[in-house]
């Protein structure tokens, strides 16, 4: 395997982008990545997108995006693993460069979610669950995570206010991210005072509906040196799956796919949880962030929410989690989320995070992207060379 580095990152302001189309959103992020890397072409493009078909009626996404990116005729395709589509695109791009199949590969992600109504988006997102035995009964994604939160809070005696610490912290960080959809702080009591979406989850426990794109350029470490860019090496990658139905898991508050993906990534990188300086995790709902930090070995089972409530995951805490603002504040354009996480980690490892959210002495960073109620987990570890 060849050594692989991220040499270019492309992000854009996420939000309700009424004036921008599906293709415009991806192209803007993709061009930013190409410009940042300083390359004149890419050999291959992998686009993570959860549901172009349901959100904008567009499939065949690899070809359309390659063409509009000015890269007509290159190898291009779309990868999908629900909300983990971006993370999967990054992993496939990593494998493509490491294997020697391609030298310069773009891993991108995109979702245009506001061209359908709110219940239309709820329907599209629910396709990440089991259509016949979960969604058929009327469950939604907030509903699935609410059922996880219900078990967790009762089992570990977690209070409503303690859970609110997670979105509170996300907004503290997101307020410092100029690309975030909701770049402002919230009061902790705002969470419990917000409308209920699926008990016990309120609106501010949930990540929003977002239009957005992100892209990164991966190449070999040898080529990266010639480009004279800071070299952020990808040192670990893991992907694992679980039952698609939440109710088919013996332990519904343990994210086995994330645990296993994390183990593979740690092993490949030769790192342990205590070696990680900061992590971007998939906080699609407040409870998810706690479950992920436990599955990745940062906190013991049942202590993830309390760790956040004690400030251990804050910007100046022991392990900064979601310095970007996370899915909650930065936004969650589903297919782009996994790539957005990589963009944040690369910024942090380069030492270029904006507005005072730079983590001091950040050398090793991790991303964790998740599909459905945890049926897919993708973990990557990156290090400054």
């Amino acid at each position, binding site marked *: 395997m060849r050594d692989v580095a991220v040499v270019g990152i492309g992000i854009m302001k996420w939000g309700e982008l009424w004036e921008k189309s599906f293709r415009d959103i991806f192209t803007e992020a993709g061009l930013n990545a190409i410009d940042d890397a300083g390359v004149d072409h890419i050999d291959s493009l992998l686009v993570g997108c959860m549901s172009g078909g349901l959100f904008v009626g567009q499939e065949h996404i690899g070809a359309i995006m390659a063409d509009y990116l000015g890269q007509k005729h290159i190898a291009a395709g779309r990868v999908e693993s629900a909300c983990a589509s971006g993370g999967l695109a990054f992993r496939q791009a990593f494998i493509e460069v490491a294997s020697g199949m391609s030298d310069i590969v773009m891993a991108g992600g995109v979702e245009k979610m506001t061209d359908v109504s709110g219940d239309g988006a709820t329907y599209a997102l629910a396709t990440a669950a089991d259509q016949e035995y979960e969604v058929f009964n*009327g469950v*939604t994604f907030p509903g699935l995570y609410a*059922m*996880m939160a219900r078990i967790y809070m009762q089992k570990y005696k977690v209070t409503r206010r303690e859970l609110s610490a997670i979105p509170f912290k996300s907004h503290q960080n997101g307020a410092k991210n100029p690309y975030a959809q909701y770049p402002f702080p919230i009061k902790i009591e705002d969470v419990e005072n917000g409308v209920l979406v699926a*008990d016990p989850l309120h609106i501010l426990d949930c990540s929003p509906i977002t239009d957005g794109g992100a892209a990164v350029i991966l190449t070999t470490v040898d080529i990266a040196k010639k480009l004279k860019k800071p070299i952020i090496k990808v040192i670990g990658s893991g992907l694992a799956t679980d039952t698609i139905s939440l*109710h088919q898991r013996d332990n519904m508050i343990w994210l086995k796919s994330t645990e296993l993906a994390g183990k593979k990534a740690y092993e490949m990188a030769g790192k342990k949880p205590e070696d990680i300086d900061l992590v971007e995790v998939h906080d699609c709902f407040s409870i998810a962030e706690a479950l992920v930090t436990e599955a990745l070995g940062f906190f013991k089972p049942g202590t993830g929410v309390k760790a956040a409530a004690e400030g251990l995951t804050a910007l100046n805490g022991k392990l900064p989690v979601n310095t970007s603002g996370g899915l909650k504040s930065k936004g969650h354009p589903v297919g782009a989320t996994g790539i957005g996480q990589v963009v944040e980690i690369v910024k942090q490892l380069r030492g270029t995070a904006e507005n005072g959210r730079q983590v001091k002495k950040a050398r090793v960073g991790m991303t964790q992207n998740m599909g459905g109620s945890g049926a897919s987990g993708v973990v990557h570890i990156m290090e400054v060379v």
Partner: protein
Amino acid sequence: MFPARIWREFPQRYRREAAICKKCGKRYFPPRLICAECGGRKFETYVLPDEATVVTFTVIRVAAQQYSDMAPYAIGIVKFDDGLQMMGQIVDCDVDKLKIGMKVRLEFRKVQSHDHHGVLSYAHKFVPKWY
């Protein structure tokens, strides 16, 4: 939903047919072609019991489009005595009084009426036993 898609699930939705792996005894709903535990490919059909226990639940207040006129409604995961779990709506109850550990009865109810092809679909729902 296209009629054939509902018809295909009749054994599970109408008759609650589940499967036991003949090799290791693992239970599945819906049935599968291969056992995820032992790789066994032979199964015996059995019918799910009438009673189960609530393991977790929520109240859906923002629903997907085909259910939006039913919201708010309760939905939960229940466990049978043999350990098998399934999901369904919890109905005929005060949603504020639901609790983990509560016993429910399975009843055959209408689940969807606003499908693309006008076909009604039926399956189990859970009714708390105090009613």
